[in-house]
């Protein structure tokens, strides 16, 4: 069966004049962001989401290389593959990680983190931020990626992960605050050590 012209999200015609690797890459780039967000939201775990995403695309690549069956709706097909991966993932987990927070502070009035976001993200480089984030628990890491890597707002994260919006907002606010404090501490430490070195020399 030959690869015939199908539609991908009704805009992109693929398969015609493409070799299979090109076809895979076209679908990969068209679906990457959507599926990354999907895995992040459904697992609430950055590393697991990335592993599942990679394995799923690998299976999809093998399928495209090895079979002649045309896929009529690649996005729907990939979503189905994603759901299969997630079913296996859930089955392998004894319990899905849930956000653990102090219940007393759960519904506290949260300041709008926008100012804090600006002060953190504009002053601190991403590598440094991520070095602090890596030490944090899940699903806070997932919230941070969804918010700053995939530019989702609180409501979108809340709906996607089935978590109250106030929880998302609160967790992100605390994370940013922690990042800012850690950064300030390390800055002041490095300032002190450099000034003491200067004093020592004098």
């Amino acid at each position, binding site marked *: 069966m030959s690869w015939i012209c199908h539609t991908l999200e009704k805009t992109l015609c693929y398969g015609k004049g493409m*070799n299979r690797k090109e076809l895979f890459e076209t679908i990969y780039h068209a679906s990457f962001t959507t599926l990354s967000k999907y895995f992040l939201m459904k697992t609430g775990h950055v590393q697991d989401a990335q592993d599942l995403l990679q394995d799923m*695309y*690998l299976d999809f690549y093998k399928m495209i290389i090895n079979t002649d069956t045309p*896929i009529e709706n690649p996005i*729907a097909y990939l979503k189905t593959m994603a759901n299969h991966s997630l079913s296996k993932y859930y089955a392998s987990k004894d319990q899905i990680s849930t956000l653990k927070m102090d219940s007393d502070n759960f519904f506290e009035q949260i300041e709008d983190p926008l100012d804090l976001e600006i002060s953190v993200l504009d002053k601190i480089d991403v590598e440094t931020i991520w070095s602090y984030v890596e030490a944090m628990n899940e699903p806070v890491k997932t919230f941070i990626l969804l918010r700053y*890597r995939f530019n989702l707002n609180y409501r979108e994260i809340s709906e996607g992960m089935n978590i109250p919006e106030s929880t998302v907002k609160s967790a992100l606010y605390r994370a940013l605050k922690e990042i800012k404090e850690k950064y300030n501490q390390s800055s002041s430490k490095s300032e002190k050590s450099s000034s003491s070195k200067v004093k020592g020399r004098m």
Partner: protein
Amino acid sequence: MRNVKKTWNSIQFDEDELLEAIYQKASQDSIRPQRLIISQEENMNKNVWKGLIGIGFALLVVLGLWLNPQTPNKTVVEEVKQDVVAYIAVDINPSFELAVLEDGTVSTITALNEDAETLDTTDLIGLPSEDVIEEIVLMATEAGFIDTLDAQDDYVVLTTVIADETSTLTYDYLMTRLQTRIQDNTELQNYYFVELKSDMVERLEAEGQNVPLGLYIINGTIETEDGTILSAKEFFSNPDNVTQLQSQVHVNITQVSQEQLTYMITAWLSQLSEQGIDVSSYQTQLESATYEALVQLHDDLKDLYPDLATMGSKNESAPQGPSENAPETKQSQPAQDGTPSSVEPSQSAPETTGTPSDNSKKPSDKGKSN
């Protein structure tokens, strides 16, 4: 802030890095893109031919549409499948696949086996899916693929695949419409409708093995000695297979009408009586049975006398007596996901109770009520 945000791409979920990792893993598994190993000259020649064939094909399609724009030619319909949001596989013994559009109408009907090819379904294209399913079942009956007058239970396996999950057309919507149609048409209540939900992966797997989707799923729940694929009738004639199916797959099986059940049980009791088996206690139960009691009696008899369900008609060879391993009563198991047991009357099952006036006759109401 925007500039800073952009650099997040290189920290986690790096699109290019992940792609590279996929190719590395694939090469470790010795996966090579087949079409990359084509010489440039060969590739150019192919492209020229592809171009000419493409132009020729486009001209043919345009000419075909211009000459006869109203005819839903199957080849042309194949090319506009982008609007298809769901597929429904219908397995009786004729096996069909219906491609369903966003509005619930059927755009393509594909015959999946030789039996299906003998039925002309061209006129059904464009009708709502429940109309098409109804017509296919009635056509299959008329053509002799199903015989509601024999002593066998008649099953219609419907497997639904939602191809576009963003669509407003959902599995529940399609099944609710079908359930309503079954309630409205007494003739459809002579059949057990087995409703399965599947996905695109299983659909492709079934296609790869050249097995109709519904049969692929139900046969996947059991092991046959030589791996042969059982037809729906063969599969459902064994109560153990039904139990196995219900424990593994999300399935809903509609119940047949009270009249059909009564007819079936009467036919079975007649066969058993001819063998000299005392059926008086069953006949007593039958006379005063409610719908639920009929279902139980039907299932008990199938368990005790498995041959009853596989006999072509009551004139064929008599059953061989109770199975040695048959349990006293059938204990239907609910599915793991909480799916209701098939022996419980479904919502579509008639709720009328009481004694049928004439158990020996086939239900007379065979007309379509819609």
